């Protein structure tokens, strides 16, 4: 797995879209084709393929979204031009079809909060919100995330301040080594966005998709309980 990952970096990383290249802010510069429809799913096939190589990469910065085509196919030798909406910013990227969202977030966008743990949907270290719902970034292809709103732990910050769930984790020592923590916090955020009036039992089963090797569970659950109470009382307690 690791060896393969390395060679993929040679291909993709080597032809080198600098992270953040061509990014624009979410507001203002939107393109109708890029907008999710009511169901949150982007219906248009605005994927555009690009062969590996410098000439193709050089054209990327100035493109507008291409017209929809029927059934786009991207072969392993090609890259796809996609726009991801990450933490309210549009990020335009070239991706290989097999790249996971986790790989793209960490290696192409420099957003390192989501962690690479098991890479098979079991540990939760890679949890991000996609359309407000916690999902595993390791089990999501980057091309499939196109047109959906992605929120990482970085996006939960209030400017330079910690978000409320982050605060609660700090207050209650909801961590030891901290490796699982970004995933725990994003999973808790998703849980509380769906329903802030959660019981301790609902928190425990709600976070069952996030493992903590250090076993900080009691403090994690206490932190989430506290954050939930605060949300229900509008910030007090």
């Amino acid at each position, binding site marked *: 797995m690791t060896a*393969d990952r390395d060679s993929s970096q040679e291909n993709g990383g080597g032809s080198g879209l600098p992270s953040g290249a061509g990014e624009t802010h979410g507001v203002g510069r939107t393109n109708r084709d890029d907008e999710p429809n009511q169901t949150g799913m982007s219906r248009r096939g605005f994927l555009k393929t690009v062969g590996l190589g410098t000439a193709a990469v050089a054209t990327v910065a100035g493109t507008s979204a291409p017209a929809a085509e029927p059934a786009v196919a991207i072969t392993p030798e090609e890259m796809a031009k996609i726009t991801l909406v990450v933490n309210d910013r549009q990020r335009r990227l070239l991706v290989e*079809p*097999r790249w*996971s969202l986790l790989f793209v977030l960490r290696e192409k966008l420099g957003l390192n909060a989501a962690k690479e743990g098991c890479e098979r949907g079991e540990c939760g270290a890679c949890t991000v919100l996609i359309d407000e719902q916690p999902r595993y970034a390791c089990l*999501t*292809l980057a091309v*499939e995330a196109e047109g959906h709103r992605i929120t990482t732990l970085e996006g939960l910050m209030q400017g330079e301040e910690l978000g409320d769930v982050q605060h609660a984790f700090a207050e209650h020592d909801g961590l030891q080594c901290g490796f699982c923590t970004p995933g725990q916090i994003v999973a808790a955020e998703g849980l509380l966005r769906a329903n802030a009036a959660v019981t301790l039992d609902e928190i425990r089963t709600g976070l069952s*998709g996030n493992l903590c090797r250090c076993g900080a569970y009691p403090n994690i659950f206490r932190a989430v309980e506290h954050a939930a109470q605060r949300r229900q009382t509008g910030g007090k307690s």
Partner: protein
Amino acid sequence: MACRNTTYHRPQSIAEACQIAGEYGIRGRFLAGGTELLIDLDSGRDRADQLISLRDVPDLCEIRIEAGELRIGALATLSAIATAPDVVRALPALREAILTMGGQQIRNRATIGGNFCRAVPCADTPPLCIAAGARLEIVGATGARTLPAADFFVGPRQTVLDRSEILTEIRIPVPPAHSGASYQRFSLRHGMAVAVAAVAAVLQLDGDEITSARVVLSAVAPVPLLVGECTDLLVGRKPVPDLFAEAGTIAAAAAQPITDLRGSAEFRRELLAVLTPRALNEAAARAKGEAA
């Protein structure tokens, strides 16, 4: 995630998706939530090299009641189904079955169609759908067909689908008045643990008489097992605990469990003798309007 050397297709219609799949045969796979497929490709267990994404295919995520049927699009995620008001109202046991599955991240991504089509013996959504008399809508390169959910499974990881066929919809008759359903499952942990054994039961009562009964077992046979002997035993009788215990004995005998790391075959039979009466008791209570 290294889905090595795969070509990614993004068809815009069912017809296109079927056509691409037909073209590539065993090299092609439909990509729904990917919670099974991406792991299989990554581990080399699945060697397909053409991924056919269903994300842009229209109308596959709808959940609605129409013409007396609860219709669930194959691409609906497990959490969308568990929270759909029509499901909660018409078949709360389906919501309960889904909430036993994986964790929130899995349920937010995994689809019911993927759960059917991967066809592992311990899959949690098929048993209740089969017990409730579901039919499956299937579309392929050469046309469409409909078939009872009970006839869909051929063996572990094997279904009746040919390579070009897409499962598009699961249609469950809305349970009539005086009927009830239940899904009872045993796993080694609550959350993120697959079933060691599970039982789905659907009962219909007329006064104090059972008029129809279907018991389906999960994780104890190569495919979800509809136990005809339970139906024979139950129909025409009074819904009492002694009868349900007897049905448990029959279910345990009908199962073909294996021994694996989660439990021995004997343990699975013991579980069935407990889970079957539990499911029938709850289904009966619901049919009588005694339980939510």
